[in-house]
């Protein structure tokens, strides 16, 4: 069974507006790595919102691991929480994801709710800080960090939940050269660990490194 199945999805933000996605279909198997490319306005971010259960298509079906994802199904907190635990989403603008007082709290926010022991939680947070070299910033306020640092914190906070599907909107944009190669390496490792990756990126090098399958998106006329 495929992890993601989209069948003829049509989505528009308002009834009178033209659709952003029209009759769009896609299949992603567990462990796949897929890079979406396309011009601005091609519907990449909209697709990501649909895949995260934030927007719901007017027509068509979205199944995640066999379960059809609908507004009604997600209304039940238990369903929504289990679903969000399995899907990690890095916003295109990571600044909009950070709402805690310190970087450490930001990363601990998700895993703290998972009923882990104190030690396990501690390990997770420290591991995630180390993964992105954020140790020195741990007690700083995310609000005051630079754009690149914010991106790292946001990604660390997502990875701390250990999701099996990672949806990353422009993960390399705004990072310096060193951070780019670091992050590329990390994504490669995650891929090898069996995570499913779905990226929107314009970075050819990253796609090559990951051996990602390319999917060209165009806006519907």
């Amino acid at each position, binding site marked *: 069974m495929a992890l993601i199945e989209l069948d003829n999805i049509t989505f528009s933000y308002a009834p009178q507006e033209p659709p952003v996605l029209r009759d769009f279909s896609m299949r992603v198997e567990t462990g796949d790595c897929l890079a979406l490319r396309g011009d601005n306005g091609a519907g990449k971010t909209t697709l990501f919102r649909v895949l995260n259960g934030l927007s719901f298509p007017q027509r068509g079906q979205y199944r995640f691991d066999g379960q059809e994802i609908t507004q009604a199904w997600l209304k039940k907190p238990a369903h929504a929480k289990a679903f969000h635990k399995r899907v990690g989403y890095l916003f295109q603008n990571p600044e909009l994801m950070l709402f805690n007082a310190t970087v450490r709290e930001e990363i601990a926010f998700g895993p703290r709710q998972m*009923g882990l022991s104190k030690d396990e939680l501690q390990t997770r947070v420290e591991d995630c800080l180390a993964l992105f070299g954020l140790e020195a910033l741990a007690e700083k306020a995310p609000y005051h960090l630079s754009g690149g640092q914010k991106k790292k914190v946001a990604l660390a906070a997502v990875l701390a939940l250990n999701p099996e599907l990672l949806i990353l909107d422009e993960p390399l944009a705004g990072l310096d050269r060193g951070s780019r190669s670091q992050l590329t390496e990390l994504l490669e490792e995650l891929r090898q660990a*069996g995570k499913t990756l779905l990226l929107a990126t314009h970075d050819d090098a990253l796609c090559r490194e990951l051996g990602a399958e390319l999917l060209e998106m165009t806006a519907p006329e």
Partner: protein
Amino acid sequence: MIPAWMQKKEQFAPPGDGGAFAVRSLKALGGLLARVRVQRGREGRLRLPALWKLLLLLALLLTLSLSRQPLLLLALAALVLGYASTLPPGELWSVLKPALGAAVLALLLLLPAMLLWPEGRGNNLILAGKVFISIIMVNLLNRHTPWNQITRALRQLHVPGVFVFVLDLTLKYIVLLGGLMVELLTARGLRAVGRDRHKYRSVGGVMGVTFLRSTELSRQTWEAMCCRGFTEDYKGL
């Protein structure tokens, strides 16, 4: 090297509750933003100048509030309901819903009084009716009058330009900051996968970041004003 726990796939059974405050806040904000967008784009069918509408509304509200004559109240009700009845159904409901809610609330609030002092019942019912009619009137005005026309009307009433400027800015900031809150609450929801024992931390976080951004926005506006040659002449605004 990624840590061992990240290499495994884990099973997790979340608890089935919580997060109601964020869901409700999101809903309220979503409604607000949609409303403001409608507010900006729409022209009324009743093409009175906004200034007239504003004065008419004030006069009607005052009459309604002062009047005790059943016939006058009935006439007002007939006028307002008659006009409302010409609206398309969807719009009609969005005008009536808040008014009905307020009227029911008023009846509930007045219920003990009606039981205690039966002789005052008539007045109490009239009060609930007045609440109903006034809210419809306010709703009709703001459904059919874009915001920029209301501020223009305020200028015509010689309300100081500084004040109108602040009003316009406020509405702009409400859209910007409201959007920020929606995103923050959404991001929180995506990571709130279990039992949140520190809900007030999230509340403080979302509103705190919103405040920080509000000061940043105001500073940027100020700088942009200066860059375009603003000379602290607030009277000329």
